[in-house]
């Protein structure tokens, strides 16, 4: 049989895969553009008919509402964009503190699942199952009820040392700002440089002689010594601003509102249950033989964990952990339900006052998108460093 030459393909025929691909894409682009145009057209028409103004010029107007809590003072005469800025800082504040606390608690719970003690194992399992199977919004509201109704009123606040807990929130002593703290901060910054230098030297020493150096206690000592030195150089200020019982409320000192505490508690406890599962999965994914091989080489339990188990577990842990961090940040938007002035809550108020739904909602979405993408980038960078270096 004569094979002959294959039939010549016509590039502009429906039988050519490339041509079909082009057609599909053109159809998809046309359809999506059409839908977007349709929606945008309707929106513009609707806005004109209902007399809704559009544009971001309202951001410069005076907001006219007060904000319950903020990192820096805010006055109702100030502009909307300042209000949004406060909302963003409030969101970030609760998210960052929540992420730190949830990571600590979640790691403890996840490691606890491998305890040799059945009680500890059972307790960690019950915690995880209980907290991740109840909606986070319900947990936030429940904590808010507990914090605002079960706790005593301010005049009968529970007191532990100089800490007060009541319906008014948590009051705690804060150091009075003096040059000493600034010097201590300088000391901490300096200690980081010293620790970096020390670790470099220790690694070179290890490579040259095989002698491991203390990787944790000495740097910690450097950190403490440097900050203490800075603090002493700055005149060693010891003055604290203590909260005191006032006529109607606890006065002075630092304070955390019940709204903030409820959001923080709810988000931390909920996310910790997911992080615990992530950590458990990560540790379980390391093959048993790895740990046994490490002990066969004569590494002690500590070294085995630090040098063999953790680096391998972290590769599995980091991607889902990033997702949990992002989830916590996004869930902080539920703060609107209990009146913590996060960015969603501020946008909601601004929306109700100005009626500019499109603008306010896009600001919220943009803020979260930037936070999400930023966190993903950071974690991807870390992940690529921790990933297996393959040939």
């Amino acid at each position, binding site marked *: 049989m004569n094979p002959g030459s294959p039939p010549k393909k016509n590039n502009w025929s429906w039988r050519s895969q490339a041509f079909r*691909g082009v057609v*599909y*894409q053109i159809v*998809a*682009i046309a359809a*999506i553009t059409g839908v977007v145009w349709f*929606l945008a057209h*309707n*929106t513009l*028409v*609707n*806005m004109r*008919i209902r007399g*809704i103004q559009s544009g971001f010029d309202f951001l410069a107007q005076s907001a006219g509402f007060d904000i319950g809590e903020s990192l820096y003072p805010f006055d109702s005469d100030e502009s909307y964009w300042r209000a949004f800025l406060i909302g963003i800082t409030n969101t970030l504040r609760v998210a960052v503190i929540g992420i730190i606390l949830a990571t600590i608690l979640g790691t403890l719970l996840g490691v606890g699942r491998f*305890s*040799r*003690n*059945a*009680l*500890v194992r059972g*307790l960690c399992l019950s915690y995880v*199952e*209980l907290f*991740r*199977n*109840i*909606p*986070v*919004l*319900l947990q936030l*509201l*429940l904590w808010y*009820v*507990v914090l605002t*109704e*079960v706790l005593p009123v301010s005049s009968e606040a529970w007191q532990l040392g100089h800490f007060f807990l009541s319906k008014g929130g948590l009051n705690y002593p804060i150091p009075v700002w003096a040059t000493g703290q600034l010097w201590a901060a300088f000391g901490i910054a300096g200690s980081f440089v010293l620790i970096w230098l020390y670790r470099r030297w220790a690694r070179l020493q290890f490579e040259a002689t095989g002698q491991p150096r203390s990787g944790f206690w000495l740097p910690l000592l450097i950190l403490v010594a440097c900050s203490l030195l800075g603090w002493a150089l700055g005149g060693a200020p010891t003055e604290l601003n203590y909260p005191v019982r006032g006529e109607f409320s606890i006065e002075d000192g630092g304070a955390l509102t019940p709204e903030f505490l409820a959001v923080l508690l709810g988000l931390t406890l909920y996310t910790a249950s997911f992080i615990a599962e992530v950590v458990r999965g990560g540790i379980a994914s390391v093959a048993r033989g790895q740990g046994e091989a490490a002990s066969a080489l004569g590494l002690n339990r500590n070294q085995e964990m630090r040098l063999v188990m953790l680096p391998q577990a972290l590769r599995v842990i980091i991607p889902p952990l990033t997702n949990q961090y992002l989830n916590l940040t*996004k*869930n902080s*938007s*539920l703060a*609107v*339900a209990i009146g913590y002035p996060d960015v*969603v809550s501020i946008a*909601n108020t601004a*929306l109700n006052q100005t009626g500019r*739904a*499109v603008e306010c*909602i896009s600001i*919220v*979405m943009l803020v*979260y*998108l930037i936070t*999400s*993408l930023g966190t993903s980038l950071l974690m991807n960078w870390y992940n690529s460093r921790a990933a297996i270096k393959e040939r």
Partner: protein
Amino acid sequence: MHTSTTFQPIAPRPAPVNTEGPAAWIKSNLLADWKTTLSTLIVGGILLWYVPQILSWALFKAHWAADFNLCKIEGAGACWGVVTEKYRAIIFGRYPFDEQWRPLVATVLLTGLLVASCMRVFWRAWLPILWLVVLALFFVLMYGNVAGLSQVDTDRWGGLPLTILLASLSLVASFPIALLVALGRRSNLPAIKTFCTIYVELIRGVPLISVLFMASFMFPLFMPQGVQIDVLLRVLVGITLFAAAYSAEVIRGGLQAVPKGQVEAAATLGLSYWQTQRKIVLPQALAMVVPGIMNNFISTFKDTSLVAIVSLYELMGAMKMAVNSDADWRPYIMEGYFFIALIYFVFCFAMSRYSHWVEKQVNKSKLR
């Protein structure tokens, strides 16, 4: 030379250590060494101190009768009377009191179908058709206006039926979207791939609450003049689009796990793109993603509690409204929260157990 070996008895072997039974379990799991014993004592002590207190509050000193005066007595425990008094308003929301058998039947039908869909026996071609029939029946029962049933507008729907409806309908509706988007993200066509990636990343980057705000405030602006869309439908569209992005990522994970050789083999056999996907890739990928889809369903089920913020009274919103509207019972809203927390827990825990079971079934073939 002759050496004689005389019999030398070796010492008897010790009896094997008992490794079974409760005593051995306690020894190895609670009292193995001093560290374990110490933590047993500490954790056990804490539990012994708090668990009786919690039990006494929740059960022994609690009042179950629908009388709030009982709860005002000093030293009274939980006031479950709030549930006894309000349970119908909590579970069915503002649905007309005399007609509440309708949401009950509708919910039982839908839940029954959900449970049935989890069983292998029912994984037949007619299952999607059954879903359509039951959903239609659900709407007829809830909305009424036919066969002598009075009409009940969607703004009076609420409670558990609404929660289950939102969760299951958004799952069913989001699945085809998710499938197409997942295929699109792995497509070779750059335009389609870009659109699908943007959609997924955009949705996954924002919280559900902002999508719900959009559904509630912006969708009315999107519609042509004179077209009014029910708030329930708008929220449903919002949740569906949100859930679809997450499911798409799960399905994409399944697609990636299908070995490349499968697609190449299909191409060698001369199958077209859609034939390859339908007959070769999807059957393998979808079997793998069932646990992931199930987990998504659990989160969607929990997330439906958010619609209370845009004034739809699902289980949590219904509870808040029922208890807050009554000044006598308002102080006992915490018990109300515990009650619905229990409902959510029962549903989500059952589903997560099922998801674990499916995962084991899927992995069984790999364990040989």
